[in-house]
């Protein structure tokens, strides 16, 4: 079983569109949308949900106004500026403390140190996760509650469930749509994976973020390939990325031209290779073939 994670560093370089095409091209994949912040893959895959479960996204502190004596201990111990002295009065004190749920880190330190049991520490709902069926195979995905914490934990959960499913259904490939950036959800989606595919574009941001994504893959000792989307936007920078990939020992898996047909495919809820045959669809097919060859070559 192999886990292939598509990441990009920079957002909007075409990760999700590419994953949808790979899902159509792969033989019996399990598909995972680990971009839990902007989970768009379902818009193409059209999943039929078989199972849906709640994701507990950690805890949240809340002042029980009636019990608060305004002693200020919570404000003193909080390191996240989440405590404010502007809660309503309660008969004994004219103002109470209040915790901003958006700033609360869920560490529970205020709850622990409050001498008056005035701080509740409750489970917050982080979102829901789903096992679904799609035309290309089973899919794991999630819907985070807006502003939820712990996206890394949710990503790890999705990957674990995908592995279980792949084992049970004898599927060899797990295709993972990652998130932009280099932070916690990205780290959670690549650690321990077999291959990372970095999708970038020939722009200063694309180059800059390709380097950071490549550094991240190297940091976690994961073999990487790269794809340049919209390559013809700037040929010099495409060449630069190619050279740099060679230099870093990253397989350059191919290029895709700048083409608004990607959006047309998206509007018709199809992947590029399902929507069209020639042009960029052929380029995407070539990339998939090259990735397959690279992965076989790198087999332990």
């Amino acid at each position: 079983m192999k886990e292939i994670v598509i990441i990009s560093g920079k957002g909007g370089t075409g990760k999700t569109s590419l994953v949808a095409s790979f899902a159509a091209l792969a033989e019996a994949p399990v598909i995972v949308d680990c971009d839990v912040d902007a989970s768009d893959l379902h818009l193409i895959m059209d999943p039929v949900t078989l199972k849906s479960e709640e994701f507990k996204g950690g805890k949240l502190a809340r002042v029980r106004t009636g019990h608060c004596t305004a002693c200020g201990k919570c404000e003193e111990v909080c390191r996240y500026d989440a405590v404010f002295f502007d809660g309503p009065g309660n008969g004994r004190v004219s103002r109470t403390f209040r915790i901003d749920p958006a700033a609360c880190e869920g560490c529970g330190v205020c709850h622990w140190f409050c001498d008056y049991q005035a701080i509740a520490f409750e489970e917050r709902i982080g979102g829901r996760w789903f096992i679904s069926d799609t035309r290309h195979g089973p899919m794991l995905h999630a819907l985070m509650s807006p502003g939820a914490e712990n996206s890394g934990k949710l990503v790890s959960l999705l990957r674990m469930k995908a592995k279980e499913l792949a084992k049970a259904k004898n599927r060899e490939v797990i295709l993972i749509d990652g998130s932009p950036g280099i932070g916690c959800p990205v780290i959670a989606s690549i650690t321990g994976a077999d291959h990372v595919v970095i999708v970038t574009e020939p722009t200063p941001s694309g180059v800059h973020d390709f380097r950071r994504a490549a550094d991240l893959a190297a940091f976690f000792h994961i073999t990487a390939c790269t794809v340049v989307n919209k390559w013809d936007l700037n040929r010099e920078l495409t060449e630069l990325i190619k050279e740099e990939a060679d230099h870093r020992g990253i397989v350059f898996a191919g290029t895709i031209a700048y083409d608004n047909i990607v959006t047309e495919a998206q509007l018709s809820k199809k992947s590029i290779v399902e929507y069209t045959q020639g042009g960029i669809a052929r380029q995407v097919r070539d990339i998939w073939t090259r990735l397959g060859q690279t992965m076989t070559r790198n087999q332990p």
Partner: protein
Amino acid sequence: MTQNQENLLIAVASGKGGTGKTTFATNLAWTLSGDSDRVIYMDCDVEEPNGHLFLNPEWSAAREVKVGIPIVDQDRCIHCGKCGRICRFNAIADLGTRVMTFHDLCHSCGGCMLVCPVQAITEQWNPIGMIRRGHSGALSVIQGELNIGHPTSPPVIREVKAEASGTGIRIIDCPPGTSCPVMESVKGSDFVLLVTESTPFGLFDLRMMVEMLGLLKLKLGVAINRKGLGDRSVYQFCEQRQIPVLMELEDDRKIAEAYSRGELAVVSFPHLKERFRKLMQAVLKRIRT
């Protein structure tokens, strides 16, 4: 130049990545810096800070961002186990004979240190990123950058915002997504400008973002990038939710090519300056009502 006594914090965000946050934030900040004093561009997309690639600032100061992680004096420890019990992140565990720490899991809440009855835990300050300050013409630039391999960006974002405190017009370039780094970036802003494109992906992510901002009760408006691409769904959504569409930028390969050469749109296409000025006027009107 007009003397600007105003203190405004405007966040430029989007759920989906690559819709043009940095394009809007840099061009808006650059345009405004030609018209008023004390305009600050703040790059809070600390995982992938890209604003400097277009603004080319001259850096004048840099400092590290550090977070405290626990160091346990094993000889002093009495193995009461309280540190392991208070920690919500499994970053410290008392095994009876020694205390183990897992620094990657630590959120630096300081709980273990506070709860230890024998002061066996102290903090070591580890660097997780950088803050840089500089100038690009009249524009002040503050950038945060998260170190590769460190998972949590909010402490770096908090430092960018602390560095930019004071008066002036401050434009925040936010990270993509809807989770904690975005919350940290938009928190306390007077207005959030959501940059999107009218495509199915753009719409889905915009909706997530609008829900999140609703929780924070922040004023918001939408800017549509790559106008002409996709369908009308984002416009319909904005109409239904009564969210103002404050600016549109055409889907023009020439703009994309200028971007690919690291050029600011308002520098390559000066007529766009007026559009960003109008955008700012529209934002100001919304803030004041």
